[in-house]
């Protein structure tokens, strides 16, 4: 059996598990799936088959998870039920991701901050996912602005050198066809608000699938 077939086998198992866990509380189902997925990924073919055999029937896993969740005899369950937070729900996380994506467009800056707070409060994403979604757009724009300005402006004196007067009489900064630092900064901010931040929120939505 090839590694591709084992990858498919692993994917099939997770798909059957997802189907079986439809009635398991969402947060618990996410934890179980995540725990199994992290164990199956990166294994070689033989180890994958062994793990899947060891896991057994997904329907049994789901049934036991459901029983353990609803078992009123377990004393700690009272704590779990009463403390289950609204932030554990998929609906909350979807609202959080959409607010992060588009909140800043509707209410500049403040909408995005609200999105960050909501995303941070959700328990359905891992910490690294939240950090990537919040920080990466800014790092990307800062990088583009810094390197853009750095790469462009050393060339400006050369452009001036070819000037008809042979001197720097007409600075490139005054040429409307030559972008200025101001242009880089505003293009970066526009790209951040309209493209990168919405994309980061949509990426979080994509990460929510099957959770």
């Amino acid at each position, binding site marked *: 059996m090839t590694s591709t077939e084992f990858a498919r086998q692993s994917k099939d198992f997770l798909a059957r598990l997802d189907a079986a866990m439809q009635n398991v509380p969402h947060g618990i189902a996410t*934890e179980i799936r995540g725990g199994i997925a*992290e*164990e199956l990924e*990166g294994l070689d073919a033989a180890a994958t088959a062994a793990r899947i055999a060891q896991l057994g029937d997904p329907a049994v896993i789901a049934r036991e998870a459901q029983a353990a969740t609803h078992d009123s005899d377990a004393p700690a369950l009272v704590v779990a039920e009463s403390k289950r937070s609204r932030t554990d729900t998929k609906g909350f996380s979807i609202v959080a991701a959409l607010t992060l994506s588009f909140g800043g467009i509707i209410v500049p800056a403040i909408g995005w901050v609200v999105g960050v707070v909501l995303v941070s409060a959700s328990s359905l994403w891992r910490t690294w996912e939240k950090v990537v979604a919040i920080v990466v757009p800014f790092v990307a724009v800062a990088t583009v602005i810094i390197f853009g300005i750095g790469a462009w402006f050393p060339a400006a004196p050369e452009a001036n050198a070819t000037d008809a007067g042979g001197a720097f009489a007409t600075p490139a900064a005054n040429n409307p066809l030559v972008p200025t630092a101001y242009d880089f900064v505003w293009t970066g901010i526009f790209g951040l608000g309209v493209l990168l931040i919405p994309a980061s929120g949509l990426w979080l939505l994509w990460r929510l699938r099957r959770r």
Partner: protein
Amino acid sequence: MTADVGAQMRKGVVEYCVLGLLAREPMYGWQLAEALTRADLIASIGTLYPLLGRLRESEAVTTFDVPSESGPARKYYRLTDAGTARLAQFRAQWTPFARVVTGLVGEERS
């Protein structure tokens, strides 16, 4: 009936067994599931995660991610101070409790 007694006993102690395992070292879900399944305390990984969820909600355990070279980051569980205190409380009660029960029910003669 015997099976029910066993199930009730497992249900009563499995949470503390998880705390005991995590007192030794932080562990990820699969590791815990293997240890508990081997000891016949849970039937499958499906029983473990609701239990871990309860322990996390009650702040007896907390989680952290460890990057993995072969796959996604692994979520590890470790004991908190509250979990350590709860385990200590259980340990203090378990030994006298087990001694009392053994004294009352006696041991099976071979």
